[in-house]
């Protein structure tokens, strides 16, 4: 039968699942992702969900989406999708705009009755025409067929309707030739404790797959190219889980127990969830009474000798400011994770933005420099969380890790590192010989990197007092001496500046002889890199570098930026990093590409922006 079907071979395809927030779109999206990664595809996902847990059924506000790109050279979840699944009229209305020209839209035609259209605020009775859809629309009676498949299951109507998402998944799996046994394995794990639900979902999944066979004549199927990945054991990981695991790796590599003090906040809560589970690795995750208590308990844990972390999003970072200042003056290691979301205030809790950069750099009273780093992708969250912890402990300073909703919730396939792939972390413990020599004071520091020693409470002969009041450079006693204060301010600042010698240099990608350098920081890496590749394919010359270390900047920053006539900074805010770079390097000509819509870049927005800047000359 398959030979009658048109087969398209593609490098990568993008699928978007959409429905009510209770329709299980995130679940089927995740399963599709895992199955694809399992057969060697690169994957990149973008869950796009509403802030309301359950908005009214069928309403525009309750639409939840999950977009995934699978194939080779996948760095983003894709600007537009090849296939859209819309479980109801509202989902179609919210998502039709994301479908590529020539793409396919699968709708559950049973959810397009008059009342459904009304709820989704259509003004005519023909939604396809009203939305100006040119893609091929597959009208599938998903609800009817799900009910038919489960007629004799004994399940009640409500439970039966909950299986609709698996009909859609079955159909999509047929379309993309995904191995059904692997789908069933994920399903079985998910519903291990509910065999009846597993049976029902498996049956509906198969029905959806069979349906694909039977309608084959009307639609193309896809064969997706995959590239041979580096050998190793892989798992699918999202940025928040990767962050949590990176911290655990840092705990193992430093020998310091891991402590998390946190308070739930979207979109960072999954870090708390994961670390709470990891009591099985000895992690202590404490849900404190508020954001301030989160950071303060972590500061207490740090003083006590743990690798101490607090996790939050923008509003929580604002509340933690005073606490971070305490860790600055006490010179204690502290990792602060900010999974950025749209602001100001409560803003757009579930949407992504890069608008906390200046808050992270400067949002404290007094001169209080901290180290700021930003992961570039979901899997890079592992590396950069490890780095944040390493720098915090080895340099005795707070480090703010600026993740964001896009990479925190997004996932990709990740090769599980071998035990020896990450370096040992060596905190500057107070040496026993120094204790024995007598006269040690808590702010005594190493001259090379200005780092003070860490005396772990419980150590005999090293009892000492820290505090938020300014201390004497030599004795560590309270001091209000004007010159001493200035010396301490510059010393703390110099300590952070010298971290530049302990981080990797910027890497230059693309055309080294180009006039234009595209750059950005943190979670926009995939889109920026893809934009550069696309422009090069069009014969344009463009160079690219990406910042994961924000403060201090890598040591070669000035030299590298200075090589180009123009530096274009693309970021999801109104220009915070561009301003930061311009302030540090006034002679560099900086241009900007900005977006503040709570959504990640589209690659096209970056290529268009760059072409426009190129054409100015």
């Amino acid at each position, binding site marked *: 039968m398959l030979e009658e079907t048109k087969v398209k071979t593609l490098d990568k395809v993008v699928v978007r699942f959409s429905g009510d927030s209770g329709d299980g779109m995130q679940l089927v999206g995740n399963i599709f992702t895992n199955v694809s*990664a399992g057969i*060697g595809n690169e994957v990149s996902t973008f869950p796009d969900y509403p802030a309301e847990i359950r908005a009214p059924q069928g309403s525009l506000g309750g639409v939840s989406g999950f977009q995934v790109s699978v194939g080779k050279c996948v760095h983003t979840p894709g600007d537009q999708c090849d296939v859209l699944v819309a479980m109801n009229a509202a989902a179609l209305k919210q998502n039709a705009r994301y479908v590529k020209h020539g793409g396919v839209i699968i709708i559950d035609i049973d959810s397009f009755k008059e009342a459904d259209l009304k709820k989704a605020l259509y003004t005519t009775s023909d939604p396809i025409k009203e939305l100006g859809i040119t893609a091929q629309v597959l009208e599938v009676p998903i609800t009817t067929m799900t009910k038919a498949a489960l007629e004799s299951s004994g399940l009640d109507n409500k439970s039966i309707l909950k299986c609709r998402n698996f009909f859609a998944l079955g159909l999509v799996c047929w379309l993309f030739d995904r191995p059904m046994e692997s789908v069933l394995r*994920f399903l079985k794990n998910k519903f291990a404790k509910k065999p009846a639900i597993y049976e029902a979902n498996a049956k509906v999944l198969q029905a959806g797959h069979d349906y694909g066979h039977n309608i084959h004549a009307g639609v193309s199927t896809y064969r997706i190219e995959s590239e041979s*990945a580096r*050998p190793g*054991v*892989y*798992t*699918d990981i999202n940025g928040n889980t990767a962050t949590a*695991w990176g911290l655990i790796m840092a705990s*193992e590599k430093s020998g310091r127990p891991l*402590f998390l*003090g946190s308070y739930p906040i979207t979109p960072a809560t999954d870090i708390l969830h994961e670390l709470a589970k*990891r*009591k*099985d*690795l*000895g992690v*202590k995750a*404490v849900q*404190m*009474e*508020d954001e*301030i*208590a989160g950071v*303060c*308990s*972590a*500061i*207490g*844990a*740090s*003083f*006590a*000798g*743990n690798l*101490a972390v607090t996790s939050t999003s923008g509003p929580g970072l604002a509340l933690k400011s*005073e*606490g971070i200042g*305490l860790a600055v003056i*006490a010179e204690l290691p502290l990792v602060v994770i900010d999974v950025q979301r749209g602001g100001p205030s409560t803003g757009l809790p579930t949407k992504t933005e890069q608008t906390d950069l200046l808050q992270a750099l400067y949002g404290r009273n007094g001169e209080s420099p901290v180290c700021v780093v930003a992961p570039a992708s979901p899997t890079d969250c592992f590396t950069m969380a490890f780095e944040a912890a390493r720098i915090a402990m080895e340099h005795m300073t707070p480090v703010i890790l600026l993740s964001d909703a896009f990479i925190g919730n997004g996932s990709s396939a990740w*090769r*599980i*590192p*071998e*035990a020896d792939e990450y370096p040992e972390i060596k905190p500057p413990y107070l040496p026993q010989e120094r204790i024995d020599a007598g006269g040690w004071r808590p702010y005594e520091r190493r001259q090379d990197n200005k780092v003070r020693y860490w005396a772990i*409470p*419980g*150590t*005999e*002969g*090293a*009892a*000492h*007092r*820290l*505090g*938020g*009041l300014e201390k004497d450079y030599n004795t560590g006693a*309270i001091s209000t001496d004007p010159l001493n204060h200035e010396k301490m301010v510059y010393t703390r600042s110099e300590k952070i500046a010298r971290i530049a010698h302990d981080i990797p240099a910027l890497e230059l990608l693309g055309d080294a002889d180009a006039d234009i350098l595209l750059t950005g920081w943190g979670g926009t890496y995939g889109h920026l890199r893809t934009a550069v590749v696309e422009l090069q394919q069009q014969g344009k010359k463009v160079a690219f570098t990406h910042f994961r270390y924000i403060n201090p900047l890598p040591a070669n920053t000035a030299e590298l930026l200075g090589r180009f006539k123009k530096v274009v900074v693309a970021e999801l805010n109104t220009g915070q990093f561009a301003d930061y770079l311009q302030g540090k390097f006034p002679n560099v000509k900086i241009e900007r590409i900005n977006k503040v819509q709570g959504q990640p870049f589209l690659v096209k927005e970056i290529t268009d922006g760059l072409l426009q800047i190129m054409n100015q000359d």
Partner: protein
Amino acid sequence: MDTQQYTPANYKSDQPVRWCPGCGDHAILNSLHKAMAAVGVPPHKTAVISGIGCSSRLPYYMNTYGFHTIHGRAAAIATGFKVANPEMTVWQISGDGDGLAIGGNHFIHAVRRNIDINMLLLNNKIYGLTKGQYSPTSDRGFISKSSPYGTTEDPFIPAELVFGARGNFFARTIDVELGVSQEVLTAAALHKGTSVVELLQNCVIYNNGIHNFITDRENRADRTIHLEHGKKMLFGKELNRGLVQNGFLLKAVEIGKDGYTMDDVLVHDAHTPSNFLHQQLAMMDGHELPLAIGVIRDVAAPSYNEEVDRQVKEVRAKKGFDSLRSMILAGETWEVK
């Protein structure tokens, strides 16, 4: 186990004490040094953590691990410290502003969680370090720089908050009662879980004599009662007055008068789980009934940090992962060759 004996001097730092002459904090500091020596936890196994305010300077005067932190947050910082390093004995020092105003939320949650720390609440009913504003324990109508016409709000009674947060240890003392102070601080140290000790303390500069009604030598014996577990609730210069039950309430009587005998006088039971009588005892204010000092409630209950350690041990034994890698490999993975 450390068998070395310690003296109060072992807990004193070399820093000059900078409280005002005559401040009640001096006596409290001395009582604390003595209690620590009596309990015998070595200075390097002891941490003293404070917030902001006059009393919060105390860690600088201790030869232990110490942390003078930020306003209101000492309880949260002490909580993290204790969970992270449960081998250490942790003391938290706060004033009435630090602990009950800006730090009120952390105070009640630390008590509710029953984290094993000793919280000292130095209550002088005034903000001293900011030079004389009313505090959350100042009486209604209290005149201060920030309430020139008298406050128009009711104060917290610290004990009531502790019981509201389901606390298991509450004791009270007065700066001038050195013996009682040492006794309750020792009991607080020995109690597993959050031990709250309210220390009524005189601010000689901004609120001099605020506790005079109960601390005056003339009347102190009649206006206070020193409660001790297992002992009769007796007070008065001659110990001839006692507390008896009067319906659901308490009543102060004179032994031998109105038909009351020693047998009628209640025996203090600090260990009974019900906090009904403890609350009544703690709410006595020196007027109708004498203000209670001593250990009012001391009930054993699982502490937060012990429970965390127990869970970690149990889960680790059950799952048996020896590393992050082994945990990840036990989940969904695939191999690329």
